[in-house]
């Protein structure tokens, strides 16, 4: 009735190619942005930011990144945790000033980067590392590539544990984010106000989603999808698999690096590589995009929301409302989340994004069933 293209005439090419061709969608999109930017920062407190919103935004960026690689380009990766670690440690090194040593002597020290650029540098360094570990994808596919990226995961975690240069030779091997500000407003450190941390992460999330959406519907996205659907056919019609696969690895790692940098600097403030960026993180982000929907921007958000919010919701319901023992609730959480994943994959193999698509189709026809 109100959700349809009819009556909405495009008079320019730009209008014809816009992301949300339906007026209702467009209004909804701007409304969501408005609420996220102008309303939520006014009403949130420490609990909402640190328990729900920051992990959601940060995991959404990681899921976007992995979705580009797995969902759009069809290259399976189990190295997400390791790549997030690269982002986190690069961010740490750049925000404390990279020191270059040669033969036991300090050659020079870069000035400390502003936190904004440190996060960006986290993405850039990860993009570089991602391309390096993406090279095997030119020779191997599928499960074999998954194993190669698994090697990246273990190697990177081992390296950050082993080489003390990465954690500035601290005795514990932990990295902790010192206080840093942007335009005089604290972004990292314990005294950060909830809204500042939230808006900082939100900015990166919106930017990532915007870039990802426009990359995937442009030429490079079409090349990735061609590679995913049939690489030989893609090669024959003139897609360069080297370029397509490596750009996918690069863009994907860039986003994952940004999320790792934010995860460390804004969200947790101190991390230990084995605990924070272990193999379970790779699986978590992979589950997010599988549940959310492979090859869908909305799916990345939906999957991140599902896996971040559900455990917290279950905990609040079980412990705070029903007063059950914490261990029973923790065990139930595992059962319920696991069960839901199975139910989802059976009932809707294409994820939450597909549910959304079906709902939109139904809305188009409503109120007539045919």
């Amino acid at each position, binding site marked *: 009735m109100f959700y349809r293209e009819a009556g909405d005439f495009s008079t320019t090419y730009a209008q014809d190619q816009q992301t949300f061709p339906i007026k209702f969608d467009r209004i909804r999109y701007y409304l969501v942005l408005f609420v996220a930017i102008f309303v939520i920062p006014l009403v949130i407190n*420490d*609990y909402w930011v*640190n*328990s729900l919103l920051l*992990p959601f935004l940060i995991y959404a960026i990681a899921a976007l990144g992995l979705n580009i690689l797995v969902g759009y380009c069809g290259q399976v990766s189990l190295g997400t945790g390791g790549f997030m670690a690269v982002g986190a440690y690069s961010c740490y090194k750049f925000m404390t000033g990279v020191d270059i040593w040669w033969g036991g002597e300090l050659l020079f020290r870069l000035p400390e980067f502003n936190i904004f650029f440190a996060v960006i540098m986290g993405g850039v360094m990860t993009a570089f590392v991602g391309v390096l570990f993406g090279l095997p994808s030119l020779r191997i596919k599928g499960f074999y590539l998954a194993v190669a990226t698994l090697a990246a995961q273990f190697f990177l975690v081992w390296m950050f*544990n082993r080489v003390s240069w990465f954690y500035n030779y*601290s*005795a*514990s*091997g*932990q990295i*902790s984010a*010192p*206080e840093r500000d942007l335009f005089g407003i604290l972004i990292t*450190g*314990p*005294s950060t106000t909830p809204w500042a941390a939230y808006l900082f992460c939100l900015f990166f999330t919106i930017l990532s989603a915007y870039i990802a959406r426009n990359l995937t519907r442009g030429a490079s996205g079409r090349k990735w999808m061609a590679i995913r659907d049939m690489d030989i056919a893609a090669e024959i019609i003139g897609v360069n698999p080297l370029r397509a696969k490596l750009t996918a690895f690069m863009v994907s790692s860039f986003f994952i690096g940004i999320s790792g940098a934010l995860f460390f600097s804004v*969200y*947790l*403030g*101190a*991390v*230990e590589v*084995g*605990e*924070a960026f*272990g193999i379970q993180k790779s699986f978590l982000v992979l589950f997010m995009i599988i549940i959310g929907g492979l090859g869908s921007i909305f799916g990345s958000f939906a999957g991140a929301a599902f896996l971040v919010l559900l455990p*917290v919701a279950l*905990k609040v319901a079980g*412990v705070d409302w029903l007063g059950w*023992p*914490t*261990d029973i*609730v*923790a*065990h139930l959480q595992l059962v319920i989340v696991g069960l839901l994943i199975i139910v989802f994959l059976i009932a809707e193999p294409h994820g939450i994004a597909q549910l959304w698509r079906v709902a939109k189709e139904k809305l188009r026809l409503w109120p007539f069933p045919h």
Partner: protein
Amino acid sequence: MKFKLTSMAVAAVMAASPVMAELVFPSLSYRTGPYAAGGIPFADGYADYFTMLNARDGGIGGVMTSVPECETGYNTEKGVECYESLKGGGGLVYQPLSTGITYQLIPKTTADDIPMHTMGYGRTSAKNGEVFTHTFNYPANYWDGASGAVNYLLEENDGDLNGKTIALVYHNSAYGKEPIRTLTELSAKHGFTFTEVPVDHPGQEQKSQWLQIRRDKPDYVIMYGWGVMNQVAIQEAANIRFPMENFIGVWWSGSENDVLAAGAAADGYKALTFHGVGSDFPVFDDIQTYVVDAGKAAGAGDQIGTVLYNRGLYAAMLAAEAAKTAQEIHGTAQINASQMRDGMAALEMTEEKMAALGLPNFGPAFKVECTNHGGDGMVGMTQWDATAKTWTLISDFAPTDKDLIDSLIAEDSAAYAAENNITPACK
């Protein structure tokens, strides 16, 4: 009319404010996951002591206590979530029982003006209260543990460790890495060779590490492990027939759960401790009467008297005593977190005090000062008897290498202060 309005306003304020007639001691516990074997008894002991205080004394200074629990699973992300969710409830002191979570919470608790007690874990240099104003780690810390173990070995070898080899099997995390610096310094001082053998989380797979130990044949092995890693290490040590009396665990690697799995092979295994073992203390009669018999025991109620239960109990006792001190200082029964910090900073434990609490000679006497948030680091040694299935204290609580540890603490806390723009000062 005016009176009516005022009384309505008062009623509204009273209705709106949360129930404050309680002293809240949040428990960041972990009863699930690979570290549950250590988390459950500690959380039970912590909760049971406050249950007993409520039933026996009517709380602390006439105010009832409550112990809301939050499951962290030894995971830092969940730890942060727990901290934020419990913060709203007015928690007085946090005890995360995880070095990783401690690192996260040190700046957060300082900014929120809430004290944190990391008993025998956490960041060792938090002993310097001039830098770490809200973190306390009395009565002993990781470096005391390392030094205590070396002191014990020195005594066994008539004061000479020259030419000996000591291997450190450690959990490859902030926790396990803590003693490395101290042991390196001590090896230079006493002339022994020190080797590092890291074990990755969670530590169920240690074949290669113990193969290395079998090949290198160190004279002694010190272990900094936790959770399932301990059981596996002791089993593996038994498999390569490493002499158990030369195998020393820190206090986190010395509970019943760690040795029972290996059966008779674990006989003679040693572990450090900073408090008494067993349930032969008067306070356990009260626990039995007011908690167990009343059916109010936390968890399954089967942990009473185990090493880690005692440690949880000890932590609760120290927290309760600090709360009492805070009540005296500020002259109010209903203290808040900031006042609790003052109580902890002025805590003094004496032999008489502990005897009156039903815990004679259970832990060392110490006095917290601004420059010393960590007590005096008195460390004892316990040994496991596999036939009787008990831990016995086999040495007196002895002081550790204070000079060395204090210089390391000064160095590390100065680095932290410089990194975070803190001017060291007494608060």
